[in-house]
């Protein structure tokens, strides 16, 4: 193991920034009162939650009363889909989503399918873009909800959310977006973009794990996912994770205030890394280039070798990377996102995701570009596919 440590998996999760942790700390053991209590020490925690709600609302141009805190991004996604579906099933049973959503959306949709709902999974093009026209054609008289992610967690594609929002508003269909990878990283405006529901998670923008939020536009019919006490104005039960909520609020404010400069910096690093990686023979970039790509996201396929072994060797050199989304890296299924953009299985297996963030430097990029070619060579040397290619048994 080398002495260096280069974390390039910011899309999986981020560390909590010191300013954020600092603001959280008093809520563990000083201001620990249950926000629902009557006595005055609890008003401190109530106010802290309100303040956080304001900060979140401010970050996405929503109203304070439209923000509901949850236990994670997945809970927000599940709540949005199941809550809207069950509450509106008299109006229809059809939902439209895409093939490249996070599993929190896809598996919630499968659950709904097994409970009488119909789901259309829209295809995407070679860069991962959803076609708004195709989406509009998929709408029928039973359609109650459209859910399209704001930005893809694997290949960084930023979807045409404003166009999709406009279509849904026109057709009077609710529009949810999983913005877990977008919030705090690219501008999000629920009013301008006609978004009715939006999921986010603190640990993707230097807040703590275990807290997320769902924005629900005023007036939308939605069932509870977690029933119980009257917290979150009766919509989400459970004693509030006060410290976590405070952390989310601070982190989102910080992220939005630094966004413009940080995006410039990160997209510069990103493009340099992409250029360097494309020099490795038989490498390909997954996802679009330029402004439609998340500033910190790089995703490539390296032919003839397999992703996990690349990651393990990178790890042995101190580089933390991923082969897809973190939550499925324990599984053997090839990335559904890369399959959806049309790649064959054998190429999908050789995918590598490098996601950059606050701590990433020019030197980190240099270092990866220095060590990765050797790793690729070493694995290709072992690979029977590479040998076949050299013997011209495989065409590329």
């Amino acid at each position, binding site marked *: 193991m080398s002495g260096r440590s280069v974390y390039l998996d910011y899309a999986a999760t981020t560390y909590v920034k010191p300013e954020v942790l600092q603001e959280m700390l008093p809520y563990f053991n000083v201001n620990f009162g249950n926000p629902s209590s009557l006595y005055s020490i609890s008003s401190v925690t109530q106010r802290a939650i309100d303040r956080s709600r304001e900060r979140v609302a401010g970050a996405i141009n929503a109203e304070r009363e439209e923000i509901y805190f949850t236990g994670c991004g997945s809970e927000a996604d599940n709540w949005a889909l199941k809550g809207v579906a069950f509450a509106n099933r008299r109006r229809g049973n059809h939902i439209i989503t895409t093939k490249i959503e996070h599993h929190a959306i896809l598996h919630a949709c499968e659950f709904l399918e097994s409970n009488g709902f119909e789901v259309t999974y829209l295809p995407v093009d070679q860069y991962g873009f959803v076609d708004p026209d195709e989406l509009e054609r998929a709408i029928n008289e039973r359609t109650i909800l459209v859910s399209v992610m704001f930005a893809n967690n694997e290949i960084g594609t930023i979807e045409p959310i404003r166009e999709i929002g406009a279509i849904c508003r026109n057709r009077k269909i609710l529009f949810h977006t999983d913005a877990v990878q977008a919030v705090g990283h690219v501008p999000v405006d629920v009013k301008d973009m006609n978004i009715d529901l939006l999921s986010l998670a603190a640990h993707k923008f230097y807040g703590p794990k275990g807290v997320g939020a769902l924005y629900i536009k005023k007036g939308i019919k939605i069932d509870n996912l977690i029933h119980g006490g009257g917290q979150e104005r009766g919509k989400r039960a459970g004693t509030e994770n006060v410290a976590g909520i405070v952390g989310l609020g601070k982190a989102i404010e910080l992220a939005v205030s630094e966004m413009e400069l940080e995006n410039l910096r990160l997209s510069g690093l990103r493009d340099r890394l992409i250029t360097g990686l494309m020099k490795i023979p038989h490498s390909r970039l997954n996802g679009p280039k330029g402004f439609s790509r998340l500033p910190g996201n790089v995703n490539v396929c390296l032919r*003839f*070798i*397999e*992703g*996990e*072994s690349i990651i*393990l*060797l990178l790890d*042995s050199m101190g580089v933390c990377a991923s082969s897809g989304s973190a939550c499925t*890296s*324990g*599984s*053997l299924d*090839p990335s559904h996102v890369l399959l959806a953009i049309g790649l*064959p*299985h*054998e190429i999908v*297996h050789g995918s590598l995701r490098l996601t950059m963030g606050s701590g990433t430097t020019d030197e980190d990029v240099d270092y990866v570009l220095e060590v990765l070619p050797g790793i690729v060579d070493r694995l290709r*040397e*072992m*690979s*029977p*596919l*590479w*040998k076949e290619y050299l013997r011209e048994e495989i065409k590329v």
Partner: protein
Amino acid sequence: MMYSEKVMDHFMHPRNVGEIPDANGIGEVGNPVCGDIMKIYLKVEENIVKDVKFNTFGCGSAIASSSMATELIKGRTLEDAWTLTNKAVAEALDGLPPIKMHCSVLAEEAVHKAINDYRVSAGLQLWDYKEHDDIHAQVHGN
């Protein structure tokens, strides 16, 4: 997921990587769609595995399983080598995560295929072996 130190050692420093130009038994299993291919080369002399090498496309445990399987059969009689099981490979590696057990199965199958390949070319009778269809189906959803 966590690999044992043994797995990591065989992944980082795989034994017997390569091809044998004059191999007299070759076994290849897996396919690129599933994400694992193992190819085992044998040099058999007087019923003994004189030399063995492998090429593998696959994850850490696929590479480590190939490496360990070659170690386990090197220098053994064909009868001995034939008794190699995926369990033996996994145990020699101090265990594999459940989701990765199929890698040890691939290694067993590749060895068996290579031995039978040798037996065919040597004009000997094929030995029967049971394929681990169950594990394959379970892992790859068929």
